[in-house]
């Protein structure tokens, strides 16, 4: 399996690996995938009072492309609003990392992880972003 340089860079130097404390305020978690499928991604976002994602962390069980996809999205969501983050599409991730067709599912999983984290944020912290999402 030949990996792109960007995948190898993220695999060897993953950005933002880790977890936030369970009680930290503004933290929301998305966990997607299943061990039997070979991929599990956990993405956490930390949102400040202004609705901006000020930090993000991930942990991934999966192939190099899955690790790279989740590492990349932690960089991308930082500084964005929750709504902006929710607009990140798997095609952008796949393009940035030059993923081959058999690894597209890794980028889809990363997009799902963002959506799951955003959904968790909305569930936990209520309606403040809900109306915007409905626009």
């Amino acid at each position, binding site marked *: 399996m030949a990996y792109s340089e960007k995948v190898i860079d993220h695999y060897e130097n993953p950005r933002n690996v880790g977890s936030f404390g369970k009680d930290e305020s503004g933290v929301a978690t998305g966990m997607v995938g299943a061990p039997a499928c070979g991929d599990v991604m*956990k993405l956490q976002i930390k949102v400040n009072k202004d609705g901006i994602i000020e930090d993000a962390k991930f942990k991934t069980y999966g192939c*190099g492309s899955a690790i790279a996809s989740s590492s990349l999205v932690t960089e991308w969501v930082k500084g964005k609003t929750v709504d902006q983050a929710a607009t990140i599409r798997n095609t952008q991730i796949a393009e940035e990392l030059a993923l081959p067709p058999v690894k597209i599912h890794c980028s889809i999983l990363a997009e799902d992880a963002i959506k799951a984290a955003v959904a968790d944020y909305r569930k936990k912290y209520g309606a403040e972003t809900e109306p915007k999402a409905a626009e």
Partner: protein
Amino acid sequence: MNARKHPIYLDYSATTPVDPRVAEKMIPWLTENFGNPASRSHAYGWEAEEAVENARAEVAKLVNCDPKEIVWTSGATESDNLAIKGAAYFYKTKGKHLVTMKTEHKAVLDTMRELERQGFEVTYLDPKPDGLIDLEAFKAALRPDTIVVSIMHVNNEIGVIQPIAGLGEICRAKGIIFHVDAAQSTGKAPIDLATLKVDLMSFSAHKTYGPKGIGALYIRRKPRVRLEAQMHGGGHEKGFRSGTLPTHQIVGMGEAFRIARVEMDAERERIRMLRDRLLAGFKDMEEIYVNGDLEHRVPHNLNVSFNYVEGESLIMGMKELAVSSGSACTSASLEPSYVLRALGRNDELAHSSIRFTLGRFTTQEDIDFAVKLIKERIGKLREMSPLWEMYKDGIDLNTVQWAAH
């Protein structure tokens, strides 16, 4: 970790380098003594024939049989095909049932599948969780119309040694032809065909420091075993396998097997110490599982699963080591090892397994480097694994509702 030009080779069960002493012996038979061993009318042929017979005697000596019982083939895959198909076709009027194990090499399993397509019936036995054959299940599988049994000597993935002596007794008592694939055992486990009740045995040169493209099949003469030839032509090898003999390859296999006979005892002990050093290096790691029985096992094999680490990322992290993985990483999907699945390992553990196979040129420095690297990389991947985090938090992963995709 310091950068190396080539990864450290710990994949001796895939293939071995040709021993320099073997290569040196082969070369004249390519350039100077190029005669066809079947040429009866001049010295080129006579010399080549003598070299072929000397090599045949060396192969026979390693496994303690008559040189007349050795037939050259292109390798163990061909030997397996010739033995199983040849015996099944010859004895088909006696019955149509064959018995093998799920953990056999594909050269045996795919041959069996082909025979099934042709109307034969095959029983594929499950191994016990330690990889060894279940003798009671084996006996129960034998039928009045069973004509051939094929069980490997040493498993290529987990290195376990099957009890072929006992299986041979059972087969002989019932008049069933017993074939053994011994591709992985020459030079690694003693073989004595004078006492073993084995009728057919497959050999390969390139797993024992000989060249690729040459192998042999042992065909017992007393009591005589009959086969239908699969390759027809000039009637070479007493009609069992036609085709001009590759003198240089045969000379290489003979020399490789001679060295194996002379050096096996010392080599096995040296390699066993290195393998034990490797295993001891993993001792303080959590959640690692050795696949296959450790006692009934060749000394150069260690197969370990590292839980909570995904297989492909594991291989990516091991690029300084040439090892085999339990995941056959095909273009479309990750297929877990069928051998480990047959032992009852779940997909995750089968995926996260690494087969280390040591050999003649493995050093203690290689092993120490490998241990250090593996600990570092497994540690890093586990730090990154949400499954490891959950395990550390005491969460039972079997109770988690996964969002399957």
